[in-house]
C-alpha cells in the first residue's frame, strides 16, 4: 500500500469516484480511481495506532482487485472523508468499513463491465490483476485506460455484491503495517511533527480544579492574570485569557514553557469537591436514575428463596487512558479560514465544537487528522486543538500547542469509576437462584474543555446512558434483573477501552466464580451450564484445552511464601447504544504468583482466546490481543487515579504507574479460525475478561476474594492478613513555611539580619561605643599593566576559591557587576559591583582600602559591611594572595552598574551595630601554619579556613550568628540546604576518605556520597580554577577531621544490595519506581550522566530531609559539570503529599537504620517557598 503522504487528493484529468450524496450540496467520496491507475479510499474513522489503515487498505485492494501497494487510505481530513462519527467501540472494521468495501466492489463492477464492452468479451471471461483487465485472448486494458479523461461519478449503491470470502487473496493474509517504516526512521508521522511556516508555540495554563469539568466554578474561577510577570521572557507574543482559559504564545517553545510556568495567575478558591478517597461511598452518594435493562423471571422471589444468599459488591477505580504522548495540535486562523492539524478521534465532531467555540460556520473549519499517541478512548486531543485555535485566533499566526505531561494526566477525561452490586444466591442444587445486578457509572460526556473554560457552553453536567455495556451477563440465568443507575460525572470522564463492559464483566465473572466455588463445581464447567451461545462454548472449550485447564471442583490450599493460582474469565464485549451488539468473543486463562509476605502479584501467563470472525489482517489481530492483554493486566494490577480534595493529583508516571517490561506476562494467543463469518471489532474485546480472570486466579492462589482492583500489594496484604490500611492523612489546610534562616543567619543570600536583631539588644552598647572606620581616599583606577600576568592569574584562582562571583554576579548578568538580589526575611539586599568601575565599582579603591574591607569588613568610605560578606574568613589570607586578588579584580573589564538600594526595614539598616558584632566574633589575624602538620595539611587549612570559607556554611552558628568555634565544620545550613558535617559527625553511611573528598571537590561527584548540588555546585565549579595539588591539600586537611576510612567498596556493595527495591508496595515506592529509579537504580542501563546511588547518598542518611526535598523539588539544573548529567525538578509535577510520601519512602528504604524524618511536610513547604 502506498504511503499516506498526501491528504490533498490531487485531481487527475479523469477519474472514477464512488460517492454518497448527503444533500443537494454535500456528497461524500469513498473511492477515487484516477487515470494513472492510483486508488484513494476515504474513511471517516482514524487510525488510533491499531493498524486500521493497513486493514482498510487490504479490504479495498481485495474488492477492487488491485495490489495492496496501489491503495492510499485517506483518514480523518474533514474536507475529504465521509462523516462516519467518532472512532469508537471497535467498530471501524465491523461497521465503518462496510460502505467502503461496497464502494470498491461497485467500482470494480463498473470497470469490468466497461472492459467487457471495450474488449468485446464476456465479463466472466475476464481476469483482473492489479487493476489490469485481461481477456482470454490476452488483450488487456487497465483501470486507468478505462477511465481515461472522463469524470465518472457513481452513487454508492446498497445492494452491491461483494466478493465471496473463498475468493479472498489479500484479506485474511497477514500484511505488514504500512506506517511502521516511517515511524521507525523518524519521518513526519504524528501531529506533533507538523511544522507550518511562521508557526509560533503556545502553552496553556489550566485552572486549579484539576480534572473536574462540571459545576458553577468551571469557567468562572479566574481572578487575574499578571502579564508583567512574564514581561522578561524573550519572544513572548501574547498572553491570552478568555474566562478560565489562559494561554501564552511565544516564538520559541522553551520560552512558551517558561512563560506558562512563570505567569502569575490568581484563581478563586475551588469549592469543596467530591471526596474520592473512597470511590464506593462517592458513587453510592451520587444521585442517579435507575434504568432497567432486563427483568426476567421473578428475581425477588428467587433470591428470597435462595438456599445460600450471596450479596457482593465490586468496585472499579478511576483510571487513565495514559497516552504516552501528551496531546498536541496546530491551528492556523487566517483570513477567515480555519485549519487545524489534530490527533482527534472524531474529526467531524471536533469540527462542530471548533465552529461553536469561535462562532464561525463549520464550512470555514478544516480538521486535518494526523496520528497521535495511542489513546484507547478519548484523551486531550480535542481539547488541545481547541486551545491552539483560540491562541492562533488571538495572534493571527499558526500556533502549535503541546500539553504538558502534567496537564494530560490531570485533565484527560478519565476512564470512570464504577460500582456494581450483585444480589443473588445459590439454589439447593448449587445453581444460580437469581441474579440482580445494579451498576453505577458516572457519565462521560467530557465536553471539549475550551468550550467550558471560555463559557461558550454551560458547565452543567450531562447524564448519559453509558454504564450499560455488557451489563447483562452472558449467562442464561432464569431469574435476572439488571439496572443501570445513570448519573452525572464526578470528575471529567470519557469512554476508555472496554467502556463499562470491563467493570461489568469483572462483576459477572467474579460472581460466577464465587458461585462455582460455593457450589463445589469447576468454574469452567459451571459457566458452561449457563452459556448457550455455541461460539462462546467453542471458545471456552478451546481456551481451556489450550491452557491445559485441569478441572477443580474444590480449590486446593497452597503452601509457601509464593503461592500460584489459575483463573478463568469469559466475555462477549457488547458495546454501543443499548442493547448494542457484540464485538469479538474473548476468554482468558491466567496464571498468577502471589507473594504472601510482600503482597506482590505477578501475572505470569495469559492464554487469551478470541473469536473475531473474519480476520482482515491476522497479525494485526494478534497484536491487538497482545496489547489488550498487557494494558488490561496493567489496569488490573496497578492503575488507579489518585485525588486530593477531589482534584486529580497524579500528574506523572510515578503517581500513575503502568506496567513495565519485566512485569509483562507470557502471552499465548489462540485465534479461532472463523474466516467464513463477518469480521468483528478486535480493538477492545481481549481486555474485557482481564480483571476477573486475574482476581479469580488470585483467589485460587490465596483463597481470598478481591473485589476491587487494582490488586496492589497493599490491597493483597490487607486481604490476606486483614491489616488495617494506612488511613489517608487529612491534608493540612496550608502550612506557612517556617524560616530556617536562624540556623545560619550569615549564609550568603540568607542574610545576616537575625543576628543583627539580637545584636541590637545585646551589643548595642559596644556598637555605640566604637566609631566606624575612617574613609580611605579614592584613587584613580590602578593600571592593571603593573601586575604580571602570573599575579593576575593567581588572583583569578583565588577569586574562584573565594566563590566571589557567585554573589557578586546577577543571574544572567555581567561577571562581578553585582546587583544580585539576596532575599532575607528583613528585606532585600543587593550585592555590590566589584569590577574596577571608578564610580559604581571598586576602581577608586586603593589596595589598603581593599585589604581593609577584606580583613576588617569596612567599606572604603568607612561604613561597616554586612558579614554576609565573609571577611571573617578572608582576613586569614596572606599578603601576597591578597595583592594578587586585588590585581585580578583591578584587571577585569570595568562595568558601570549600580546595585539597587537595599530594601531593609529599621533597625536592620543600621550598619554601625556591626562594629559590636565584630568586636565579639571577628578574629582579624592572618593564618598561621601548624608546624606539627604536613605542608599539604597546612596548605589545605589555609585554603579551607581562608578564602574557601568552608565553615561559613558547614559550621553551626551561635545565637548571635557567629560560627561556633567549638563545633568547627560540624554542619550548618545555607540557602535552605543543609551543609553537612565535614567531620566524624558526618551522616554519610560510608565515611569520607581523602580520595573521595578529592574526587568530590575536583569533579563534583563521589561514587560513595553523591553529587554536589544546591549552593555546593557553584563552589565546586569555581574550584576548577585551582590545581590538583591545592584540591588534594584541601582533601588532606578536611580528611583530618574524619575517622579512619572503611572498606568502602565492600560496604557500598553491602548497602546497595540490602536496599534494592523489589516490590512497590506504597505510594512512595511507586513514585520512586516511576520517577527516580531510571537514573538511580543500581545496575540499570547506563544513561548519560552519573547514576548516584541512593543507598550511599549522604543526604538520605542526614538528620534532616532538607537536601533531599530541595533536590526533588528543584532538581539539578546547574551541575558542576555536564558530564554528571542533570536532574529534573519534580516540584511542578508532584503535590506536597506525594513528595512527602516519596521522601518518607526513600529514607526508610535507603537509610533503614536511621529514624524516620519528622516535619517533612514543613520542610517541603519551606523549600517550595524558597527561590532555589
Amino acid at each position: 500500500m502506498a504511503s499516506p503522504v498526501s491528504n490533498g487528493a490531487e485531481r487527475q484529468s479523469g477519474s472514477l469516484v464512488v460517492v454518497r450524496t448527503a444533500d443537494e450540496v454535500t456528497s461524500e467520496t469513498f473511492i477515487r480511481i484516477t487515470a494513472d491507475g492510483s486508488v484513494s479510499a476515504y474513511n471517516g474513522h482514524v487510525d488510533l495506532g491499531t493498524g486500521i489503515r493497513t486493514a482498510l487498505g487490504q479490504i479495498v485492494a481485495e474488492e477492487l482487485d488491485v495490489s495492496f501497494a496501489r491503495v492510499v487510505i485517506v483518514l480523518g481530513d474533514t474536507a475529504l472523508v465521509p462523516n462516519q462519527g467518532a472512532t469508537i467501540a471497535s467498530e471501524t472494521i465491523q461497521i465503518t468499513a462496510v460502505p467502503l468495501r461496497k464502494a470498491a466492489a461497485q467500482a470494480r463492477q463498473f470497470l469490468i463491465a466497461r472492459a467487457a464492452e471495450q474488449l468485446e468479451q464476456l465479463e466472466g471471461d475476464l481476469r483482473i490483476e492489479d487493476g489490469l483487465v485481461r481477456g482470454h485472448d490476452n488483450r488487456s486494458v487497465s483501470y486507468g485506460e478505462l477511465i481515461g479523461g472522463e469524470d465518472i461519478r457513481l452513487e454508492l449503491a446498497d445492494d452491491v455484491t461483494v466478493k465471496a470470502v473463498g475468493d479472498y487473496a489479500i484479506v485474511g493474509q497477514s500484511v505488514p503495517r504500512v506506517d511502521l517504516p516511517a515511524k521507525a526512521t523518524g519521518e513526519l508521522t504524528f501531529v506533533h511533527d507538523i511544522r507550518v511556516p511562521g508557526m509560533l508555540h503556545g502553552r496553556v495554563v489550566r485552572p486549579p480544579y484539576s480534572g473536574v469539568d462540571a459545576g458553577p466554578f468551571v469557567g468562572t474561577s479566574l481572578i487575574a492574570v499578571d502579564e508583567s510577570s512574564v514581561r522578561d521572557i524573550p519572544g513572548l507574543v501574547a498572553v491570552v485569557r478568555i474566562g478560565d482559559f489562559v494561554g501564552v504564545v511565544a516564538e520559541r517553545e522553551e520560552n512558551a514553557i517558561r512563560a506558562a510556568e512563570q505567569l502569575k495567575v490568581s484563581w478563586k478558591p475551588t469549592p469543596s469537591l467530591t471526596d474520592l478517597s473512597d470511590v464506593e461511598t462517592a458513587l453510592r452518594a451520587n444521585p442517579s436514575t435507575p434504568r432497567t435493562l432486563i427483568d426476567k423471571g421473578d428475581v425477588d422471589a428467587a433470591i428470597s428463596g435462595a438456599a445460600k444468599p450471596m450479596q457482593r459488591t465490586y468496585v472499579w477505580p478511576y483510571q487513565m487512558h495514559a497516552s504516552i504522548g501528551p496531546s498536541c495540535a496546530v491551528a492556523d486562523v487566517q483570513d477567515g479560514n480555519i485549519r487545524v492539524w489534530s490527533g482527534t478521534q472524531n474529526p467531524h465532531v471536533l469540527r462542530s465544537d471548533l465552529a461553536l467555540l469561535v462562532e464561525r460556520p463549520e464550512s470555514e473549519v478544516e480538521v486535518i487528522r494526523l496520528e497521535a499517541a495511542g489513546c484507547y478512548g478519548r484523551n486531550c486531543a480535542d481539547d488541545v486543538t481547541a486551545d491552539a485555535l483560540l491562541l492562533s485566533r488571538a495572534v493571527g499566526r499558526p500556533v502549535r500547542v503541546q500539553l504538558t505531561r502534567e496537564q494530560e494526566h490531570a485533565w484527560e477525561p478519565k476512564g470512570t469509576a464504577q460500582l456494581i452490586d450483585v444480589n443473588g444466591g445459590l439454589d439447593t442444587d448449587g445453581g444460580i437462584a437469581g441474579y440482580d445486578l445494579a451498576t453505577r457509572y458516572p457519565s462521560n460526556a467530557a465536553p471539549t474543555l475550551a468550550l467550558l473554560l471560555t463559557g461558550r457552553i454551560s458547565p452543567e453536567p450531562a447524564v448519559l446512558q453509558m454504564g450499560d455495556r455488557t451489563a447483562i451477563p452472558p449467562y442464561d440465568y432464569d431469574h435476572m434483573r439488571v439496572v443501570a443507575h445513570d448519573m452525572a460525572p464526578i470528575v471529567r470522564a470519557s469512554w476508555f477501552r472496554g467502556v463499562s463492559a470491563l467493570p461489568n464483566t469483572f462483576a459477572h465473572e467474579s460472581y460466577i466464580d464465587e458461585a462455582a466455588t460455593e457450589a463445589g463445581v469447576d468454574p469452567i464447567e459451571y459457566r458452561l451450564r449457563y452459556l448457550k451461545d455455541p461460539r462462546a462454548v467453542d471458545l471456552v472449550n478451546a481456551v481451556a484445552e489450550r491452557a491445559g485447564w485441569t478441572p477443580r471442583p474444590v480449590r486446593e490450599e497452597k503452601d509457601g511464601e509464593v503461592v500460584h493460582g489459575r483463573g478463568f474469565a469469559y466475555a462477549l464485549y457488547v458495546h454501543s447504544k443499548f442493547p448494542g451488539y457484540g464485538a469479538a468473543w474473548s476468554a482468558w486463562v491466567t496464571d498468577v504468583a502471589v507473594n504472601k509476605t510482600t503482597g506482590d502479584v505477578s501475572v505470569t501467563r495469559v492464554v487469551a482466546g478470541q473469536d473475531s470472525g473474519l480476520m482482515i489482517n491476522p497479525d494485526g489481530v494478534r497484536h491487538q490481543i497482545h496489547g489488550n492483554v498487557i494494558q488490561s493486566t496493567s489496569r488490573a494490577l496497578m492503575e488507579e487515579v489518585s485525588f486530593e480534595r477531589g482534584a486529580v493529583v497524579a500528574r506523572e508516571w510515578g503517581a500513575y504507574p503502568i506496567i513495565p517490561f519485566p512485569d509483562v506476562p507470557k502471552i499465548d494467543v489462540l485465534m479461532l479460525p472463523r474466516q467464513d463469518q463477518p469480521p468483528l471489532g478486535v480493538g477492545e474485546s481481549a481486555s474485557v475478561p482481564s480483571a476477573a480472570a486475574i482476581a479469580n486466579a488470585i483467589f485460587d492462589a490465596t483463597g481470598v476474594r478481591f473485589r476491587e482492583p487494582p490488586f496492589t500489594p497493599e490491597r493483597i496484604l490487607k486481604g490476606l492478613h486483614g491489616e488495617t490500611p494506612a488511613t489517608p492523612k487529612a491534608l493540612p489546610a496550608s502550612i506557612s513555611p517556617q524560616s530556617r534562616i536562624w540556623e545560619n543567619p550569615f549564609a550568603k543570600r540568607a542574610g545576616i539580619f537575625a543576628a543583627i536583631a539580637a545584636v541590637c539588644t545585646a551589643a548595642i552598647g559596644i556598637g555605640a561605643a566604637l566609631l566606624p572606620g575612617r574613609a580611605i581616599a579614592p584613587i584613580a583606577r590602578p593600571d592593571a599593566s603593573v601586575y604580571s600576568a602570573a599575579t593576575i592569574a593567581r588572583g583569578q584562582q583565588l577569586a574562584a576559591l573565594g566563590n566571589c562571583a557567585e554573589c557578586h554576579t546577577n543571574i544572567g548578568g555581567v561577571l562581578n557587576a553585582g546587583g544580585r538580589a539576596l532575599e532575607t526575611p528583613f528585606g532585600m539586599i543587593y550585592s555590590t559591583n566589584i569590577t574596577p568601575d571608578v564610580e559604581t565599582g571598586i576602581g577608586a579603591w586603593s589596595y589598603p582600602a581593599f585589604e581593609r574591607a577584606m580583613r576588617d569588613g569596612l567599606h572604603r568610605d568607612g561604613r561597616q559591611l554586612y558579614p554576609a560578606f565573609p571577611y571573617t574568613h578572608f582576613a586569614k589570607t596572606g599578603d601576597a594572595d591578597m595583592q594578587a586578588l586585588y590585581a585580578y579584580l583591578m584587571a577585569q573589564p570595568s562595568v558601570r552598574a549600580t546595585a539597587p538600594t537595599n530594601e531593609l526595614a529599621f533597625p536592620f539598616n543600621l550598619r554601625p551595630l556591626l562594629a559590636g558584632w565584630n568586636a565579639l566574633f571577628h578574629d582579624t589575624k592572618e593564618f598561621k601554619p601548624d608546624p606539627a602538620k604536613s605542608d599539604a595539611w597546612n596548605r589545605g587549612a589555609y585554603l579551607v579556613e581562608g578564602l574557601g570559607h568552608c565553615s561559613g556554611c558547614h559550621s553551626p552558628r551561635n545565637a548571635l550568628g557567629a560560627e561556633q568555634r567549638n563545633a568547627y565544620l560540624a554542619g550548618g545550613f545555607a540557602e535552605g540546604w543543609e551543609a553537612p558535617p565535614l567531620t566524624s559527625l558526618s551522616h554519610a553511611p560510608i565515611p569520607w576518605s581523602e580520595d573521595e573528598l578529592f574526587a568530590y571537590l575536583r569533579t563534583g561527584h563521589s561514587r560513595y556520597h553523591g553529587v554536589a548540588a544546591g549552593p555546593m555546585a557553584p563552589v565546586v565549579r569555581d574550584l576548577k580554577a585551582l590545581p590538583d595539588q591545592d584540591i588534594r591539600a584541601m582533601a588532606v586537611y578536611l580528611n583530618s577531621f574524619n575517622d579512619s576510612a572503611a572498606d568502602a567498596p565492600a560496604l557500598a556493595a553491602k548497602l546497595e544490595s540490602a536496599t534494592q527495591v523489589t516490590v512497590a508496595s506504597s505510594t512512595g515506592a511507586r513514585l520512586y519506581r516511576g520517577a527516580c529509579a531510571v537514573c538511580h537504580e543500581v545496575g540499570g542501563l547506563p544513561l548519560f550522566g552519573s547514576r548516584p546511588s541512593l543507598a550511599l547518598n549522604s543526604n538520605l542518611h542526614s538528620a534532616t530531609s532538607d537536601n533531599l526535598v530541595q533536590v526533588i523539588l528543584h532538581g539539578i539544573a546547574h551541575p558542576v559539570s555536564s558530564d554528571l548529567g542533570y536532574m529534573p525538578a519534580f516540584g511542578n509535577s508532584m503535590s506536597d503529599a506525594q513528595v512527602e510520601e516519596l521522601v518518607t519512602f526513600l529514607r526508610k528504604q535507603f537509610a533503614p537504620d536511621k529514624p524516620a524524618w519528622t516535619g517533612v511536610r514543613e520542610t517541603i513547604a519551606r523549600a517550595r517557598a524558597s527561590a532555589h
Partner: protein
Amino acid sequence: MTQTPIRFTVNGRIHEVTAEHQTPLLYVLRNDLALNGPKYGCGLGECGTCTVLIDGAAARSCVIPVGGCAGRDIVTLEGLGTRDKPDVVQQAFIDEQAAQCGYCLNGMIMTTKALLAINPQPTEQEALSALRYNLCRCGTHVEILRAVMRASGQLAEAAD
C-alpha cells in the same frame, strides 16, 4: 540568560544553535533541527520517548539542557538509518511489527541501540531490564522484545 551559540554534532553533522542554554536538548532537536525522532513524553526523564544517544550513551533529551551538549556527539533516530537503508535495529523493529501507535518507538529503538552497544547479545532478562524505564501504553512489549532479540541475532532463543 546565556545565549551564546552552542556547537555540537548531530547525526554526523556539526550544528551551531543559538538558544538559551537551559533549553532542553529535545526542543532544539525538534524545533531548530526539525527532527521528528525524539518525542516529548513527560519532560521528566521518566518515559523514554525522547531518547537520543549522547556520546554513545542513551540520554533522555527532555531533561538535558542544550548548554550541556556543547562539543558532544548526538545521534537521533534519523541518524541510524532511513526507510531505504534502515539500521539493523530499525529493521528488526519493522520486521517484528514492533509498534502500535509508535509514539514510544523512538525510545525503544534508541535504548536498544545503546544496550546492544554495551551488550551485543543480551539475554531476554537483560533486555527486559534495559527497557524497564521505557514506557509503552499500547502493549507492544512482546513484539518489542522480539525485535531486540532479532536485532542482536538471537531470535531463535526469543521465539516462544
